[in-house]
């Protein structure tokens, strides 16, 4: 699934619940779905907070075999993830990237040559017993 969304806070619970609904239908384990919801939320709220001056962003999610790959693409000015440090214990902000790195099996940040940033998150899926998802796995 792929969606182009307005750069607006209301888009975050929308995309979160859509992806969670899809993963539920496939029978992905609740713990894995919670992790995916949270990492997706962090990636999207970063775009809404920081990706000036863009009006829109795109979220795509693909399930290949037992891997879920999420790409969040904006058209803002991009950013340098190496300049973002983990939050000090009492600091208010700076936990978004920390959370993404902790929950995803792989996180990649890149900047597009034109303009904008790409966050690519990968999560290894596990299915509940009797789930529909593994029947679609071909390999």
């Amino acid at each position: 699934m792929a969606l182009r969304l307005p750069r607006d806070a209301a888009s975050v619970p929308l995309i979160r619940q859509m992806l969670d609904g899809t993963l539920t239908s496939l029978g992905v384990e609740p713990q894995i779905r919670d992790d995916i919801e949270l990492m997706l939320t962090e990636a999207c709220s970063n775009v809404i907070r920081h990706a000036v001056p863009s009006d829109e962003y795109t979220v795509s999610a693909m399930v290949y075999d037992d891997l879920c790959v999420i790409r969040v693409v904006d058209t803002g000015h991009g950013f340098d993830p190496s300049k973002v440090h983990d939050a000090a214990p009492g600091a208010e902000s700076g936990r978004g990237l920390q959370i993404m790195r902790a929950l995803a099996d792989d996180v990649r940040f890149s900047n597009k040559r034109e303009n904008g940033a790409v966050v690519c998150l990968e999560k290894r899926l596990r299915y509940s017993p009797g789930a529909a998802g593994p029947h679609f796995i071909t390999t």
Partner: protein
Amino acid sequence: MLDRTPLQIEIASSDGGTVQLALRGDLDFGTAGELSAVPLGEGFERVEVDLSEVGFVDSSGLAALVRLHQRAAAEDAVLRVVAVTPYLRSMLRMTALDRLFSLPPG
């Protein structure tokens, strides 16, 4: 239909100088500002936060909890999380916030 779960905050103040906050719903990017805007009054010594009915929390929600902790500290009050879900406990550990807030044993 999408079931958005807005944040509800119940506030109770006791005579003993304790402000009790019970949160229900999602504490996230869209609702974190509501927690930051909650009036605490003055002259309190303890803030007790019940997070057992919170379904979803993200880094914006955690930031709002840190701000609440700072507001309590500014009044020389102590903030305690008195109830928490296993999910939220693991998130507070992951982000090292269990060192900032005292959490109930579990």
